Every structure is written in C-alpha cells, then in structure tokens.
C-alpha cells in the first residue's frame, strides 16, 4: 500500500514535466529543411540539449502560445549563458503549407529570425509524418472549408507538446506546450545540460 501511495505521489509530482524514456530519433536519418531552405540532418543537433516545439503556422491560438513559451524559455536560457549548449527547434507538422519561406516569414513576424540557435524546420510530408509518429505527436487534419474567394482552409488537431532532449538524444521531459511553466522547463534544461 505504501509503495502504491509513493508511486501515485510520483505520478502527481511529474504532472508538469513527466520524465520520459523515449529517444529523439537521431538514428533514423531524417533530413529536414530550415527556414532558409538549408538542408538539416536531424542528427546534426546531437550533442546539444534541445527544446523542441511542434507547430503549424496557420494555427492562430495554441501554436502561438507554444512559440511564446519557447521564446520565454529562450530568454532564460540566454540569461543563464547556455546559448551554446541549447538549441531550439520549432518543427512544423503541416509541411504542405509550411514551406521554408513561410517559416522564414513566421520567424520574422515573431522576431526570431536573427536567433542563431533557433531553427524552424519542415520537410517532405512523408518524412514529417514519420517523424511525428516517432515522437508520438498526433496530427489530424480537420474539416476543410472554402472561402468566398475559393481558398481551401483547414485546421489541424494536434498534440500540444514541448520536449526536452538531452545531449545523448534521450527525451528527458515533456510539457504541455501552450501551458508550460517556464521555471519547470528551465529546471529540466538545467538537469539535461
């Protein structure tokens, strides 16, 4: 009974950044493209602590909260002098619309285009689908609407997540991206460095 209570207490204490045993898929040979159209092999980030958020640029409500939270985390990382140890990745799960130039514009709009350790990544749709499955990020295309001008509009139902990946490629913590407590994330990054 005591063991069960301790385990239950552990589960509750982990609620805001549950420890995780999943690996970041460095060994799968994923090749993506950054906001400048430059090819980025996922494994080139190995050896850095990663703060990874999953977004799509047409998302007006939740993904901006994720990006805002990552920006707050980035400021704290900079303040702590960890900028050469920590890399930020915003990976789009909407590669059909989020081409590099779109991500570049998105980074500019959010004032993140000059941040050297922050990459906005997209890729071939099959690559992105496979990557999201490996990372347990659920992506479901919602119903489509057509505007008066004939444009097709759709939204995506998706997992709300920020991952912290350590230098060896182990996902050591995850947070609800739109509600992440910056202090909790910074503690997780400190442990991962």
């Amino acid at each position, binding site marked *: 009974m005591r063991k069960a209570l301790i385990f239950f207490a552990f589960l509750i204490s982990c609620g805001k950044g549950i420890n995780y045993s999943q690996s970041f898929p460095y060994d799968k040979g994923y090749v993506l493209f950054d906001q400048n159209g430059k090819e980025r092999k996922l494994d080139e980030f190995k050896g850095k602590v990663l703060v990874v958020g999953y977004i799509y640029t047409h*998302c007006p*409500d939740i993904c901006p909260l994720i990006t805002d939270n990552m920006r707050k985390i980035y400021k704290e990382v900079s303040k702590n002098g960890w900028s050469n140890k920590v890399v930020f990745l915003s990976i789009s799960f909407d590669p059909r619309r989020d081409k590099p130039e*779109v991500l570049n*514009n998105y980074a500019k*709009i959010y004032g993140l285009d000059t941040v050297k350790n922050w990459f906005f990544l997209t890729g071939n749709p099959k690559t992105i689908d496979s990557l999201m499955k490996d990372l347990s990020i659920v992506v479901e295309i*919602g119903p489509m609407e057509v*505007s008066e001008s004939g444009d097709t509009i759709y939204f995506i139902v998706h997992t709300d997540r920020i991952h912290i990946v350590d230098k060896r490629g182990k996902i050591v913590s995850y947070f609800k991206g739109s509600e992440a407590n910056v202090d909790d994330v910074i503690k997780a990054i400190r442990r991962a460095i």
Partner: protein
Amino acid sequence: MIWMLAFIDIADIWARPGIKGGNSAVYMVIRNNDTLPDTLYKASSDIAAMVEIHKTYKDKKGKMGMERVDYVVIPPKGEFKLEPGGYHIMLMKLKKNLRGGKKFNLSLYFKRAGKIDITAEVK
C-alpha cells in the same frame, strides 16, 4: 481603450501576429451592462478573407483543436472573455502580414446592440 456603444463595452482588444495568407486570432473582453443577454453572432474585417467566431478545445486524449461556433452569448450584467486557449475571433487568409504594433479594424455584430466597429492592435 474601451469601445462602448449603448450597453456593450469592449475592452482589452488585441490580436496575434500572423503571416500573409495565414491566420490570426483576436481576443477581447465583452461586457454587457444591460439586464438582458446579447448575442455576438458575426465578425468581419478587411484584413482577412474570412472571419469567424472560433473556440479552441481539448479532446479526451489531450489533443488541441479548433471549431467554429455560430454565436456566443454575453450574459446580462456580465462579461464574456475571448482569450488564448478559448474563444476567439478567427482571421483566416490574412491579406497582409500582421506584425506587433499594427492596428486594424474589425466589426462585431450583436443581435441587440447591432454593429460595433473596433480597432485591434497586434501584440
């Protein structure tokens, strides 16, 4: 700035940044000073090809999504908040980039108060 017409006040109006061709969301607090409810049923703006009232929701598995709603009711002597992670005015297919500091006009349509024109600032 508080926008007031008859019995409806609208305050804390702001919008998310957005890219041309993409989307944005507008948030605000709508206060109803009357003793009868009012209904916001439509919004429009020249800044986007389509403007709708939307709600962000979380499903049973924790996934986040959005859906259109036909209207929201502002209770008598009460308020309705359009806020991040909840209800918002959805701007779709933006006609230009919305950067921080930019202002644009938006019209809200209420069943009783009628049309109210407001200005939103991008933050």
